């Protein structure tokens, strides 16, 4: 059963008047609209949803990289509003909440970092939902989002000595191209770098 996101928003506004929460409409046919939550109130909002609206299952936490804010505008999930006036790109974390008792969901929440550099911080929600523990570590590993307050923020999939964040859009993988008999498309571009053509 799909969730009544307007009621959830009203509930949050009533209980946490200071929280910055704004609705983001999803233009696609999936009818899954989301709530953009300010970083300072993210943990409180999640705790409120868990304790008072019975959203007890944090199913999924995704990281998204938006290096180009114009692109984020074009994808209208990010719709109108003050956020579109950004100059640099940012990293985003998307939460999907379900209620096992009321059997509704998903309630989609999003939080954003200030930029993609040193301030790529989003508060950790592990204190409210344990299920975020490994997923936040994964997002830290692959996107470089720093989850403030995470109890054990280490790399999870790549090795500890690794320095890059490979899921970012601007990541360049190490070039370990090898011989391929019939190069074409992207592989041909690589082949041109590695093997000279017969003249």
């Amino acid at each position, binding site marked *: 059963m799909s969730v009544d996101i307007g009621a959830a928003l009203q509930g949050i506004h009533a209980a946490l008047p200071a929280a910055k929460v704004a609705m983001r409409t999803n*233009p*696609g046919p999936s009818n899954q609209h989301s709530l953009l939550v300010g970083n300072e109130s993210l943990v409180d909002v999640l705790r409120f949803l868990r304790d008072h609206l019975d959203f007890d299952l944090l199913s999924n936490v995704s990281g998204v990289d938006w290096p180009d804010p114009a692109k984020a505008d*074009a994808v209208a*999930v990010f719709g109108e509003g003050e956020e579109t006036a950004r100059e640099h790109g940012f990293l985003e974390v998307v939460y999907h909440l379900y209620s096992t008792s009321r059997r509704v969901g998903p309630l989609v929440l999003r939080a954003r970092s200030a930029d993609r550099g040193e301030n790529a911080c989003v508060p950790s929600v592990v*204190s409210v939902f344990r299920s975020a523990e490994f997923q936040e570590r994964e997002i830290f590993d692959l996107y470089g989002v720093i989850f403030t307050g995470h109890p054990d923020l280490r790399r999870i999939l790549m090795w500890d000595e690794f320095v890059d964040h490979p899921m970012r859009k601007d990541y360049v993988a190490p070039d370990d191209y090898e011989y391929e008999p019939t190069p074409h498309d992207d592989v041909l571009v690589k082949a041109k770098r590695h093997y000279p053509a017969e003249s």
Partner: protein
Amino acid sequence: MISDSSMPYSAPTLAPGADDDQLLHVSLGPQHPSTHGVFRMNVVLDGETVVSLKPVFGYLHRNHEKIAEGVTYLSSMPYTDRLDYICPLSNNWAYAHAVEKLAGIEVPERAEYMRVILAELTRLINHTAFMGFILGDMGAWGSALMYAFRERELILDLFEDLTGARMMANFMRFGGCRNDLPAGWAEKCSVLVDDYGPFLDEMEKFLVGNEILLARCQDVGQLPKETLINGGITGPMLRAAGVNYDIRKAEPYGIYERFSFRIPLGDKGDCYDRIMIRFLEMRESLKILRQALDQLPEGEYVNPKAKIRGFKPPVGEAYARIEGPKGELGFHLISDGTVNPYRYRVRPPSFINLTLLEDMCLGLDLADVVIILGSIDIVLGEVDR
């Protein structure tokens, strides 16, 4: 460490009074017969007792999500086969379901029935193989697995007949399936469904009262319901603890509303319950299969309006999930209107079910860790992606 009064967090990593010099640090895996692939755990032992357990992931991290962002939507379908490689067809369905939600594609009735049949056969394969593997973890190395793989081969023959591949089916398409059932396939499947019950009886006869199984599994690895839900545990693990949450009933997708079946629930949530839940789920799967085969309608096997080449879903995002054999398998897709997904995320049940592994193992013996890990039923292709 942060704490929250309403929810338990990890127990202290050292037992009170434990002397660090006396502790034994064991690195279990990545090459270990009981870690189901290349999973690794750093275990700290006080004598035989586990005082800390830290999973180490990534030994099979093969960049599924990154690769998927660089290829078209349909090109990711064969990669989903390789996520949870014991049950490729469920993964196919989950992904097709997510893209159908993203683009608003209708699925014809016959295709829905085919999907249900294939997904439930996959559940049979997964749970049967699970029986073999967990018995192997308890020391019955090989013999239980022999029985399990004997039956698995019969189902794989059906898959091969239909899709041309034993394991990596690449069968679902957005809006249906790749091809229709070949002549006589439904009849063969029907015979298999009839014969599967006696096999389950046989397997159950060997296991239910088995003294070793009882001694090793009962009262091992329980956690309170609330902690399990909070930890994101889904699937048979959660239902073994008595939480009535199966996506087939809670948020029916496909045509599951049409079938009459029950959701088996456990009582204590120990490893024994987790094994028995899977037995009962297989019996319910057989019921669904029987109904689906009897009702299987004629018609299209794929929506003729669904576009295969140059498929571009509208701008937007979607999160869709199905009840995979291991738990909630979800896909989160963001489309920017091009042929490639802007963001492609898999919500892997095996990975998230491991969140509470340490909590389940603390204070138990090292030998119990192997059973608990076996009862979670992980597949590394999905854990690390």
